């Protein structure tokens, strides 16, 4: 695959959920810069996803309906970066259905919609909005945070996990910040309200700022810390580019972020346009999350629908959407991979490769591939091109060819093609390289 095409394939994997062949062709024609621009400005791109979801009619009152709808959104969206940011925020500003009871569906829908609308907006605004979000108020117990006996859960995780990181605040800051968020709760309809009687409006000091502080003042105090920009810049860089950025790179991006008054679009744009993101070091340097693996595979195979049991499959792969293992979200990287989750990935790939349309879609047409590519070399190279950007080392290619050529005696050509081509697709998608983003 030529370098320009490979770079766009990389961009669409990282800034979205991968691309079908047709989407990649369009991106190549537009070029890298124009594609990044469109990604960063989803509001300028026409998108019929809402209509398609309405037509499918998911039951958003239930958590599983919300999961299904979201997975279809990832497959259909013409605004992939916007949706990738929803996934990022879901894993960063975490909440989980398990604490939300019968309101789980509506509350998580609302939270995901917040991340969709403001995920590339201003960080200060997003922090203020998420502090008022129903699912978050439930999940980190702030709806129970009352004057006189504060509940520290939200204040702690806000600083430790969401915005500053360990070492940039102390226990005193946590306790005082908890006081500042007292009374921030939900009314009977799940809407945010400040219960004045429960709000502690006395003097407080958080991160060196004193006064009758309330929640928004705490957020201002957090963003006045240099560490705040560094913390989020590093996390977003590691999400998009690679795991171990040079501190100088992080500082540069943190500076850009701070100078833009915490504009997320500017920060993400700086990452995607950076030489680091476009470098060889970044290429195939991250491990696909289960969602990226599953949806990405569907896109590469030209799927039109999402299998109904995909939420359960993802759970077995280690990513139960709407239910992260803890408030830290998912660790990602190597943590996605162990013997059991690799077997799940391989078995899912086998399912896609073996699907012949009896229970849903068929994704491969072996007869057509043989007709077009003729030889085992042609077929192997085509599949490697589609699935791996052609990034298939010689020894691996040789192993795949050995497999492809080995047709047992007595099997006719059509059967051999069906068996071996489906097998090749399975093997490539189960192989180490395919796990890389």
């Amino acid at each position, binding site marked *: 695959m030529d370098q320009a095409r490979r770079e766009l394939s990389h961009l669409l994997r990282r800034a979205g959920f991968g691309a079908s062949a047709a989407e990649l062709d369009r991106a190549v024609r537009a070029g890298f810069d124009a594609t990044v621009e469109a990604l960063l400005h989803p509001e300028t791109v026409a998108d019929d996803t809402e209509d398609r979801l309405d037509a499918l009619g998911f039951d958003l009152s239930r958590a599983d309906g919300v999961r299904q709808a979201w997975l279809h959104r990832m497959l259909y969206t013409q605004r992939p970066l916007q949706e990738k940011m929803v996934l990022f925020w879901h894993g960063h500003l975490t909440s989980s259905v398990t604490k939300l009871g019968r309101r789980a569906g509506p509350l998580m829908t609302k939270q995901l919609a917040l991340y969709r609308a403001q995920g590339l907006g201003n960080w200060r605004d997003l922090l203020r909005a998420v502090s008022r979000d129903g699912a978050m108020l439930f999940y980190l*117990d702030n709806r*129970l*945070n*009352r*004057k006189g*006996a*504060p*509940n*520290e*859960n939200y204040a*702690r995780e806000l600083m*430790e996990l969401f915005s500053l990181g*360990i070492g940039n605040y102390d*226990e005193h800051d946590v306790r005082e910040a908890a006081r500042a968020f007292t009374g921030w709760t939900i009314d009977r309809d799940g809407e945010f309200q400040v219960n004045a009687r429960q709000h502690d409006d006395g003097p407080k000091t958080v991160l060196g700022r004193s006064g009758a502080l309330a929640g928004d003042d705490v957020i201002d105090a957090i963003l006045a810390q240099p560490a705040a920009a560094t913390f989020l810049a590093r996390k977003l860089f590691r999400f998009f580019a*690679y*795991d171990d950025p040079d501190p100088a790179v992080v500082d540069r991006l943190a500076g850009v972020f701070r100078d833009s008054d915490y504009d997320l679009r500017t920060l993400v744009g700086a990452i995607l346009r950076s030489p680091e993101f476009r470098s060889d070091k970044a290429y*195939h*340097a991250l*491990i696909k999350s289960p969602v990226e693996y599953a949806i990405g595979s569907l896109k590469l195979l030209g799927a039109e629908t999402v299998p109904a049991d995909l939420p359960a499959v993802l759970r*077995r792969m*280690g990513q139960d959407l709407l239910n992260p*293992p*803890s408030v*830290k979200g998912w*660790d990602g*990287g190597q*943590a996605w*991979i*162990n*013997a*059991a*989750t*690799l*077997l*799940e990935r*391989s*078995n899912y790939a*086998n399912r896609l490769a*073996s699907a*012949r349309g009896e229970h849903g879609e068929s994704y491969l047409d072996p007869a057509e591939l043989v007709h077009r590519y003729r030889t085992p070399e042609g077929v192997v190279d085509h599949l490697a091109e589609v699935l791996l950007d052609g990034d298939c*080392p010689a*020894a*691996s290619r040789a*192993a795949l060819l*050995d*497999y492809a050529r*080995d047709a*047992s005696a007595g099997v006719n050509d059509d059967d051999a093609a*069906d*068996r071996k081509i*489906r*097998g090749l697709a*399975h*093997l490539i998608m*189960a*192989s*180490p*390289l395919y*796990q*890389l983003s």
Partner: protein
Amino acid sequence: MPTRREFLRQGLVLVSVGVAAPAFLAKTGLATPLPGASHSAVSRGALVVVQLSGGNDGLNTVVPYADPLYRELRPQLGLPESELLPLDAALAFHPALGPLKARFDAGQLAVVLGVGYPNPDRSHFRSMDIWQTADPAAYAKDGWLGRYLSGCQCGRQDEAAGIAIGQALPRAFWTENVFVPAITNLGNYRFQTDPRWPDDRAAQIQTLQALDARHEALRPYAEFLAQQSLNALASADELGRVASGWSTPVDYPNTPFAQALKQVGQLIAGDLGTRVYYVNLGGFDTHGNQKNTQQRLLEQLAAGLDAFQQDLEAMGKADQVLTMTFSEFGRRARENGSQGTDHGTAEPMFLLGAGLRGGLYGSQPGLDNLDAQGDLQYQVDFRAVYATVLMRWLGADAEAVLGAPFEPLAFLA
């Protein structure tokens, strides 16, 4: 397909770059009977670690019911004395722990009181890392169980020396050179191929092994992925064999925690030689409405552990397995305004098995002796509990694993 045992018996070590998969892998392995467990003579049996995630409120688990400060600090959360299960004149179990009280009375449960570490950290993640790496001071990468498995002579290297039940491998097992699978369900733990061409399966497995063995380390994670893939293929059949044809007389409760312990029972019965198992029960982060949540969780804990111990008794292995519970911290002495408690410090640990000396160990931190933040002061360093288990159960060099000497407790002879 050949098992990992057969692999290693042939003295082959799988290397990475550029080496073609050896020819013998092409033969489809036939099912061979598993050799018997190969514990080293020194270990008394397997260890099952039960992690209570979220920070279990120790004060309402082992309750200092005779101390008037208990009710002063917890006007709403204080448990009614009439419901408690007394262990002695000062301490009692939470009412949900009935099955464990019976084990305590039978001398099979040890309770270590006041366990913690210096300069306690109240972050879930930092404190859990500390417990799992046994390193409160620095940010060690590898886990204490990983270090143990790495150093012990437990059966053959690379066998599933440890098994975690769950989706993620706990940091406690992290180490470079020992394979520990994380399994959610033994039944799913199988490499599947196209059902229309069953004869193709062997060729696919061989090809994937070749792709794994021949990967070129061009990308940072390629080596790691290849090794995990080879491990997955080798262990899938071995562990899958354990899954078939097994049954237990015990009716385990239908909770995820009890079912996880049931899988551990199944694996122990399969005699794989696995030294350490790890199981998780989550939800203990009771900042609000603690009463019902903790009650439910402690019921699950007690019922699950009891069913598991019954299963071991049925197998004749009740004294060959030691189960240990811990949580990343206890909770604050004083309740908060939401009928809950916030992150705290010291907590009790449970040890269960027929091979230990039951009773109370350590000492209960005084409610009149809280630290500057209103938290319990720890009395026993958790590494002393680990050291006891390492030395006297697993037969290991505790100081080498923990990096420092710790005086063992008396719950193991």
